[in-house]
């Protein structure tokens, strides 16, 4: 195998001239980018810039023109932005997993992958998992817990790529850190490629290996250090936008 082929085989996704429009309203206009294996690509942009639409187009859930070319036989996991169950919905976490697999071992493996750590005693772990998680009602989980369950659910069939579309609300900063260190762990330990939509620039700065900023058309693409400069951000989000690496100011930033 020569080096050319090797570098080609590392390409997991090629997007060419991608355009998505709903009734004359162009949401994504002629977008081009590529994703390599093991990358953690963050898609950022203001509200309505087409982040979720892009993810849905990559999955074939939204219609588009142009081409979305995944590597052959690749398996894709997906956590959608909108997932809501009423707190009294009669459905346990275990039943939710059983929509996808009947094998306990697979459920346990997926839960461990998202950081439900077992104690040294496996029997104790089993009991703990059952009473504190699997028998819980799905609708009664906290926002952060639910996100990790959704990630675990998408991991059941061992995907090579995970598309994570972050919800806009319901998760506090601590839970968010947990979610993203979980995703980072999936990339490092299980060699997964991660594409995630995020609304928190500090998260993007800390976790992404590549950044794609959207505002109908591609505004910027590259390493986070290069992309998250004041000039690019003000172009993307409007005037007077500046990224503060200072943690406490991140919310002020986004509220503008």
């Amino acid at each position, binding site marked *: 195998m020569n080096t050319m082929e090797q570098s080609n085989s590392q390409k997991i996704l090629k997007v060419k001239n991608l355009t998505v429009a709903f009734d004359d309203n162009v949401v994504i206009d002629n977008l081009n980018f590529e994703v390599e294996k093991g990358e953690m690509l963050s898609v950022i942009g203001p509200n309505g810039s087409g982040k979720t639409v892009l993810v849905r187009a990559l*999955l074939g859930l939204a219609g588009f023109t142009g081409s979305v070319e995944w590597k052959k036989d690749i398996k*894709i996991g*997906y956590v959608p932005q*909108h*997932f809501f169950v009423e707190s009294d919905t*009669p*459905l346990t976490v275990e*039943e939710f997993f059983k929509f996808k697999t009947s094998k306990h071992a697979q459920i346990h493996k997926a839960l461990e992958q998202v950081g439900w750590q077992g104690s040294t005693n496996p029997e104790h772990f089993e009991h703990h998992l059952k009473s504190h998680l699997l028998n819980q009602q799905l609708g009664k989980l906290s926002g952060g817990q639910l996100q990790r369950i959704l990630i675990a659910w998408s991991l059941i069939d061992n995907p090579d790529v995970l598309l994570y579309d972050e919800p806009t609300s319901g998760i506090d900063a601590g839970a968010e850190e947990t979610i993203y260190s979980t995703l980072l762990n999936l990339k490092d330990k299980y060699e997964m490629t991660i594409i995630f939509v995020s609304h928190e620039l500090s998260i993007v700065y800390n976790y992404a290996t590549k950044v794609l900023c959207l505002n109908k058309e591609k505004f910027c693409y590259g390493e986070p250090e290069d992309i998250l400069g004041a000039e690019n951000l003000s172009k993307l989000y409007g005037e007077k936008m500046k990224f503060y690496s200072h943690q406490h100011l991140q919310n002020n930033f986004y509220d503008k």
Partner: protein
Amino acid sequence: MINNLISSFSSNAPLWLLMSTGVVVGVSAGFIGTFLILRRMALSGDALTHVALPGMGLALLLGLNAFWGAWAFLILAALGIWWIKRKTHLYLETLTGIFFTFSLALGILIIPKIDLLEALFGDIENLTVFNSYLAIFLGVTAIIILTIYRKRLMLLTISEDLAKTININASRLDLLFLILLGVIVALGVHVTGTLLMGALVIIPAASAQNIARSFSGYCFWSIVFGALSIIFALPIAHFFKLAPGPIVVLSAALFFIISLMPYRFRR
């Protein structure tokens, strides 16, 4: 011999057969009601039952078995809802309010007065042997299909996006669900009549939701409440010579009140 067979099929069904038919209808109504409630379609499902009326009226005018008219119109209505949901952005609730009440009005006009009361409120005791067996066959088939598809239906109910990621064809499953709903509602025409069938679909599932925390428990209790409503009501209606339909709905409502009790203790 053939004449004997025909007359035995068209004679009134014995009580045990009526009870079996009723239980099959109660179980299938309880089962499908679970999805109807979680999909926030309780009222649409109720209104759908009215579509049976003009169908029955048309069948009676043509000298056919009224129930064939009910089947045909309910399945057409199921297809109609499915098409409207896919092709337009109209709100189902609004359409339901317009189209189904229109059906009720039309049905009342064209059904001969003599048959109207039976069509509206059902009369299981007039059921023929043939119609009993037909209802049991269709009801059991619907129950088997629901059992096979229950997990996929539930996933589709809570998240269409996730359902699509495991290659569930959302639109086809929606159609299957609506056709099953049409078939089961048509079965209820025998038992509670078209006006009250909505109650037999909705109340057992609503009761089950009060006490169940898991999906399996929810389905189980809804089926049990559906069956019990029938088992409880038919003998009472028979011995006191009352219309069975309203008694069925009253007993379903009684179980709903009982199901609220654990709620109070939990507080």
